């Protein structure tokens, strides 16, 4: 059975735009200074002069009216450093000639000035990040993307590429008045090879639609995530989305065989190969996988898909302590290796949150336990796969690694188990304010940070840990009644410093976006970030593509 059928994605109201306005703190309450770490690297950034001929930025700061007539400061919620960004005064402001030009290229109806639609496009789905763009463009093909970018580059109009707008770090919405380029109309499947399993499609294809298309051909997408009903494949590639199948099929750096991208000046880079092996020169497509639209807009993708296997089994088990979870992971890799397709965990706080905030969810385990694990197997033989899974679990039960557990007997039961794991994000939103961190850590360290943070926050907040244990990826979430400075001050930069100390990554699969652009140095050396900045300058000299994100602004300041 297809794995996506195991989850009732249709039931998800995850992307409903319930207003969180009343939960926000006063705007200016979140304006802490950036971490010292970044400040110390600012001098380093000065090595990289932006293009010759630029204005003196300092002067622009003092005379805000000179260039733009506006001086904005960006505010957002739940992230300390992102709240102190200044609009880059070198960017032009949109005028009526620009809009007329876009209408000429794209046609009236694909140039959106409607306030309601802009409101949606300006806001991320968590309602944490909100821009003030006055224009959204809906190109229908690569040529139009190229023309639009070429024009924006010549006018120095900043743009934000947008897909399904399901990102969690504010990467897909404008920070100020950037023009939104949404590729949603580019949603055609271009080719599918039933022998190699290579799918070629446009960037705006919704992940679930691709999965459904492949289902009719007997194939599955190599990635699957909670937002599948809204997210675009172009966005998945641009953010190097991970998700639930990574343990089985690997990251998009492996499964994306080629792509087409348009750089800031409108140059179309055709790297749309469909070959598994191709060692001719630098493999530049990787620059566009995970660079969050800061180097170019991905317009087409070729991706390796896998045959759909007949037998999928899912177990939901309970463990007393985190050490048992680790041991089960090791044992599962040994005993179920060839059929293991997901290994997810959640703690009891996450379970309680889901039980309290989502309707119709019940704990499959009769008595509550400290940790829960979902183990999914995907293979070709129902009988032997099931026997293998059962034998493994019964052995774990005898060894007391597992305290209790259930195995889904039908797809409906499997969906309800997945609903618990996939429903956490939705439940978090219903519970009030939340701070989200997406960390890669050595597996043995994963739960220590949750415990440390619990000690630090005490009764102030509910700290939850869940995530892709099999990939060493923790989703650390802190749920509170409302956003407030004190709590944020206790979390950041503590979480980043903790992660850095253990050589983890502060962004495992969500990306940096605007939330963590300044924090990249916790996971990458200044030399590495400096090289990233020079690549950015090479491909986007005027810095119009998704500005203020991914890399610290200090690396671009004169």
């Amino acid at each position, binding site marked *: *059975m297809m794995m996506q*059928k*195991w989850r009732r994605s249709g039931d998800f109201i995850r992307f409903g735009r319930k207003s969180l306005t009343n939960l926000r703190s006063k705007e200016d309450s979140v304006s802490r200074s950036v971490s010292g770490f970044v400040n110390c690297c600012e001098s380093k950034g000065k090595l990289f002069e932006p293009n010759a001929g630029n204005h003196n930025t300092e002067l622009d700061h003092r005379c805000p009216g000179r260039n733009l007539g506006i001086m904005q400061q960006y505010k957002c919620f739940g992230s300390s450093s992102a709240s102190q960004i200044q609009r880059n005064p070198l960017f032009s402001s949109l005028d009526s000639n620009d809009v007329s030009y876009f209408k000429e290229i794209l046609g009236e109806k694909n140039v959106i000035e409607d306030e309601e639609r802009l409101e949606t496009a300006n806001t991320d789905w968590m309602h944490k990040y909100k821009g003030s763009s006055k224009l959204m463009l809906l190109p229908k093909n690569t040529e139009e993307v190229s023309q639009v970018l070429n024009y924006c580059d010549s006018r120095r109009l900043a743009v934000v590429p947008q897909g399904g707008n399901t990102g969690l770090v504010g990467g897909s919405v404008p920070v100020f008045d950037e023009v939104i380029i949404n590729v949603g109309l580019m949603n055609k499947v271009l080719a599918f090879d039933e022998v190699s399993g290579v799918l070629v499609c446009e960037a705006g294809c919704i992940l679930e639609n691709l999965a459904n298309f492949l*289902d009719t051909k007997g194939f599955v997408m190599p990635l699957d995530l909670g937002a599948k009903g809204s997210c675009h494949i172009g966005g998945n590639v641009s953010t190097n989305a991970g998700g639930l199948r990574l343990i089985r099929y690997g990251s998009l750096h492996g499964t994306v065989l080629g792509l087409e991208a348009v750089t800031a000046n409108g140059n179309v880079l055709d790297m749309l190969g469909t070959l598994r092996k191709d060692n001719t020169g630098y493999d530049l497509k990787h620059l566009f996988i995970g660079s969050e639209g800061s180097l170019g807009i991905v317009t087409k993708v070729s991706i390796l898909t896998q045959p759909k296997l*007949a037998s*999928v089994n899912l177990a939901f*088990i309970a463990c007393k302590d985190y050490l048992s979870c680790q041991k089960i992971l090791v044992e599962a890799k040994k005993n179920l290796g060839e059929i293991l397709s997901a290994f997810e965990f959640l703690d009891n706080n996450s379970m309680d949150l889901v039980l309290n905030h989502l309707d119709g969810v*019940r704990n*499959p385990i*009769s008595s509550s336990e400290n940790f829960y694990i979902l183990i999914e197997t995907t293979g070709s033989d*129902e*009988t032997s796969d099931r026997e293998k899974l*059962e034998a493994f*679990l*019964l052995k774990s*039960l005898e060894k007391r690694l*597992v305290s*209790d*557990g*259930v*195995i*889904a*007997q*039908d*797809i*409906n*039961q499997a*969906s309800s188990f997945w609903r618990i794991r996939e429903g956490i994000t939705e439940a978090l939103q219903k519970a009030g304010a939340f701070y989200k961190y997406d960390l890669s850590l050595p597996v043995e360290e994963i739960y220590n940070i949750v415990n440390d943070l619990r000690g630090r926050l005490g009764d102030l907040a509910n700290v939850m840990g869940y995530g892709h244990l099999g990939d060493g990826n923790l989703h650390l979430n802190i749920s509170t009644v409302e956003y407030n400075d004190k709590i944020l001050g206790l979390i950041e930069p503590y979480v980043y410093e903790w992660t850095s100390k253990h050589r983890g990554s502060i962004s495992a699969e969500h990306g940096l976006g605007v939330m963590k652009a300044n924090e990249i140095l916790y996971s990458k050396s200044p030399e590495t970030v400096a090289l990233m900045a020079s690549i950015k300058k090479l491909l986007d000299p005027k810095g119009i593509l998704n500005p203020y994100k991914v890399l610290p602004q200090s690396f671009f300041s004169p």
Partner: protein
Amino acid sequence: MSHHRLIVRSQEKRKCFCFVLPYSFSFCHRTMKILVAVKRVVDYAVKIRVKPDKTGVDTQNVKMSMNPFCEIALEEALRIKEAGFAKEVVAVSIGPSQCVDTLRTGLAMGADRGIHVEANSSFLPLTIAKILRSLAEVENPGLIFLGKQAIDDDCNQTGQMVAALLGWPQATFASKVVLDNDKHVATVDREVDGGLETLSVDLPAVITTDLRLNQPRYATLPNIMKAKSKPIKKMTLEDLKVDIKSDIEIVEVTEPPKRKSGVIVSSVDELIDKLKNEAHVV
């Protein structure tokens, strides 16, 4: 309509029996056995595909599971046993060898033993009802639970037919079941148009279960382990002396017609014109 009348008749019959002939102890709760029929069907969540030759539905490489209504029937039987009203719950499945998997699920939920009636062709309700009658004569249960219908053929006939063949009272579409051991009756709520209907039926009886009766339990690891040592008895049609001749022949199975895509009309006049001349609804 027909089974509605049947049930009323069975109630009257109960009254007669109660006054004239009090029950013996043969269905005493300490010994009562419950027979539950569980059907293996294409999983509820699978998108059904019709075979290209139109002879039926494609079941190759398709996830098969226990019919959800049968799961509810089994859950109710288990709850009755756990409440001390029955001694044994026997799950029975009729069909190819893979039905053993469905029975294992039943045993892992808590059934005490399974009976697999081997049959390689798929039967219509009357044949299944005849097989269940023969089994009831062998097993002598105090209650037979079935799902109100199977989600593959949606026949909604087997329970009624079993009751008729056995001459037992029936309560279909049960949304609540209460047993009274002293009086040997089951009080059953059933959801009907406009409200709830409450019936009393004498035991032995046939009860078919509706969606809201209960929420079936999951198969836990300890119970999956226990289920491995529970017996599943194999029986053949010859053992049960059932005639499998069917009066019904399936001529063709086709997919429902594809929905035509809608159009956006530009004026009220156009809408009315389309409703009149294309949709023929006004």
